[in-house]
């Protein structure tokens, strides 16, 4: 479990990093937290010839907050959302999901941007940013583009990132501070989820559902929005039977993978249950009564 030979570079500025990434193209891999990349390199499943370590680049490790958007630069560690009550209060959905990401030591190194760029379909953070309709800011030498989270994730470990591109920021527009829930089921606490569900519920003054966003992880090659379920909730009063129906609707179209940890039918079953449960939790947190 020693990595194949590679060259290591640790630039001091983002510009320098982008220049290196342009120079080496597909041969290079970016190192931020390294919590997925390094084990894959040690198993020789990933064999980059150049590692561009971003950790020496100053000024990208603190969340920026404005009234309209919360910006998470690429060196913000996952654990920041656990240790800062302000951040947890600002994006409770992300903070809640992060408690399910592996274990504290891993969250202390792993970055938000790294989890997104790695795009494991069972990971929590990609599902959450999809539900939050976040924007992923991508830079390359001399270029910058903004990709909607929905479009960023393509398939298993595959994103919209092109050669020489790196995720530099995640922007969360008007993050909801109530009515959110993240639930998941894993073989053991801290494992990649068999199924995870992120829910954002918005309620009208009469208590009816004014908006719903539901994203599932672990059931496809990328985070999936449960659009049918979202639609069937609109305008209705929150109700246990409705949530159960929405859960079934979320699970109905799924064709999840089978592996040694769970069958496809089990993942489908759990997707329905967890969607229902996440909706119920989110409704309670939104302060509305569930009939």
């Amino acid at each position, binding site marked *: *479990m*020693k*990595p*194949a*030979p590679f060259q290591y570079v640790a630039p001091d500025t983002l510009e320098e990093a982008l220049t290196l990434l342009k120079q080496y193209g597909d041969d290079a891999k970016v190192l931020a937290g390294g919590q997925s990349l390094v*084990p894959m390199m040690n*198993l*020789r499943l990933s064999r980059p010839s150049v590692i561009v370590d971003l950790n020496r680049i100053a000024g990208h490790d603190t969340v920026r907050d404005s009234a309209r958007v919360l910006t998470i630069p690429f060196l913000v560690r996952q654990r920041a959302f656990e240790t800062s009550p302000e951040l947890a209060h600002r994006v409770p959905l992300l903070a809640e999901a992060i408690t399910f990401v592996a274990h504290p030591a891993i969250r202390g190194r792993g970055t938000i941007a790294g989890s997104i760029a790695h795009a494991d379909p069972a990971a929590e953070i990609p599902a959450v940013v999809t539900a939050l309709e976040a924007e992923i800011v991508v830079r390359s030498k001399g270029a910058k583009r903004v990709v909607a989270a929905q479009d960023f994730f393509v398939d298993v470990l595959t994103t919209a990132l092109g050669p020489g591109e790196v995720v530099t920021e995640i922007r969360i527009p008007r993050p909801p501070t109530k009515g959110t829930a993240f639930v998941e*089921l894993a*073989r*053991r*606490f*801290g*494992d*990649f989820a*068999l199924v995870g569900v992120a829910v954002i519920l918005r309620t009208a003054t009469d208590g009816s559902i004014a908006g719903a966003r539901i994203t599932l992880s672990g059931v496809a090659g990328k985070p999936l929005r449960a659009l049918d379920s979202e639609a069937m909730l609109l305008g209705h009063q929150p109700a246990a039977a409705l949530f159960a129906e929405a859960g079934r609707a979320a699970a109905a179209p799924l064709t999840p993978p089978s592996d*040694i*940890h*769970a*069958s496809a*039918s*089990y993942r489908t*079953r*759990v997707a329905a*249950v*967890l969607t229902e449960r996440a909706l119920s939790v989110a409704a309670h947190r939104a302060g509305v009564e569930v009939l």
Partner: protein
Amino acid sequence: MGYFGRRQARVEDDALVTGRGRYVDDIRLPGMAHVAIVRSRMAHAGLTRVDVARARAAKGVVAVFTADDLPPSARVLPDCHAHPALVSKDLPVLAPDRVRYVGEPIAAVVAEDRYLAEDAAELVEVEYEPRPAVVDLERALEPGATLVHDDRAGNVATRLPISKGDVDAAFADAPCVVRERLEIHRGAGQAMETRGIVALWSAGDERLTVWNVSQVPYLQRHVIATALGVPEHRVRVLNGDVGGGFGYKGLVYVEDVLIAVLARALDRPLKWIEDRHEHLVASYHERTQIHDVEMAADEGGLILGVRGRFIADTGAYTPWGPVVPLLTLVNIPGPYKVPSYRMEAVVVFTTTVPVVPVRGAGRPQAVFVMERLLDRVAERLNIDPAEVRLRNLIQADEYPYDVGFISRDGARRTYDSGDVPALLRRAMTMVRYDERRREQAEQRPHGRYVGIGMGCAVEEAGLGPYEEVEVSVEPSGTVIVRAGAPAQGQGHRTVFAQVVADELDVPIEDVTVVSGDTDLVRHSIGTFASRAAVLVGSAALEASRAVKAKALRIAATMLEASELDLVLERGRVSVRGAPDRGVTLGEIARRSLGDAGIPLKLPTGPGLAATSAFCPPATTYPTGAHVAVVEVDPRTLAVRIVQYAAVQDFGTLMNPLIVDGQVIGGVAHGIGNALFERVVYDADGQNLTGTFMDYLMPTTTDVPRIDVDHLGTPSPLNPMGAKGAGQGGLIPVAAVLAGAVEDALRPFGVRVTRVPFTPSDLAEAMDAGTGGVRAG
């Protein structure tokens, strides 16, 4: 001083928990080179070409070895555990022309560092001629099945029968007969320290020094010396702080011979550290068995007979003989009265990693069989499962209890002492059994599914033939205890010091236990099968008594007093009634060594020391009873262990703190075996669980608080009354949790007939309504 039986904190821990332990990988020798092993990527294939030319030419490579490069004496492992019923197959050190499991060593690359060794290992070109993998045990037995070893028809390594009484007559008239097909799947031991070897050949005195993690260093010495073609005294095996053993380190692996031979061939110190992936795919495994069994009982649930057959997977070879299925065979009756019994074990070769004992060693399977059958009888007859067990358990006044057949040690299986009904009642009290049953009934209508499971076990421990210990006193007053059996974390340095400190009445700080060096004592078998505490402890006790007797005789000379008037107190021998007239043990030791050129003039000979090799007359039989309460989410089938009570009879406890730790660790391992840990091979014999992301160990969030209690009946077979505590915590756990989960899901007709089981498996069984957990 009263150390024996006390909850004495471990003297080992300060260094270990502050990172000052010394493990094999901490050893760095000048000029040391590193080994990486090229392992088979196929489960079953001929090797048509192994080309090492590119690897030999790679950067930093010292040498590359294949089977042909090894001396003839080091090409196959000797059969270390011969058994009359089994003709073992040669286990090649490096596969010469055929591979039989993924992970089997084919070549060894020696390079200046491990990185370069792994780089070069990738350049070894292996051409395989694929043969079909043999993974499924039943298909392996079918006519025409692919053969793992060409001369072993039907892939049968051996068949082992056992019987007592007229079992068919018992079944013929039985009012209640239950049948089950039960499966226990492959698991593994996962020590924190993987295997590792440092070997140093000293050309000057033609001697090899090996540092490794073995539980059996004296056997290692023998096998390595044989492979090198040198007398045994030319090999020294050392163990530092070893991070866990769990049984699968209790044998000689091909790497043990390989690294030794390479170190001599290259005349360079070598290091090989097994990485975790190698550990998962190449260190030996245990457990897979499929049982077709039935139990006959009368109307009151009294067992009339048990009969059946099981298939036991031994993997590609039999490096520990047929010991695992043999232990299952003799352990199925357990602590219950079984008037008639007939069972056959069919031991089958497969193209998977060889099977050897892992903590529990065949007994978790036996307990799973017996307890699942008892649960069936209880259900069929509508008797409380605890009541069925209490009716069938051997009662306290029936010990010593003759089980009625010859056991693995060649003697009539006879339980030395015990009171398992008391253990079970105690465990039931600990979980508030009657209240829990009421709560279970009350909660079901509210959609909450609680279940209670239980199981009782007996195991053989404290096995012979012997362990040797020397106790000596230095002129400094320090007492040295030299033992052959090495420690892998069990707390030997604490427990044996407790024994000796009491006998010599000295502070425990003055006693130092040293082991893990084959130059220390002449003979040792090793540390496994819950035997070290019983054997080394008893030998230490005997040796320290002899030292005490010697001290009194020497002191009598020194003090010009009669031995009968002397007392040993607080490490000092003095004349009774005249405490000023005395000498310390250190002074006695100094006197015993004499002065240069002056006759010794002592009746005892030189040195204040004594050696004892304790040879137990028979095997001890620790017992245990566990009860678990679980709750199962009826929608996700997630299992939560609400309470777990383990009550053990390990005889007299030498150190209850350490024993509690052994029980808790054992239960945790058992939780792994029930719910998480499974080595999975696909149909092609590929290991799908080569990392800890797929081979799931229970973590702190999966293991609840374990309530431990002890009701010990002292063993009559050794001077301490101890029985051995290393495995008992694990043995019943899988059976207990299977029973508890099934009990929780009884309204849904779920049958748990296999361990480990996942929530996904439970969901499938639930959807099926009846029938066992069969998925995956």
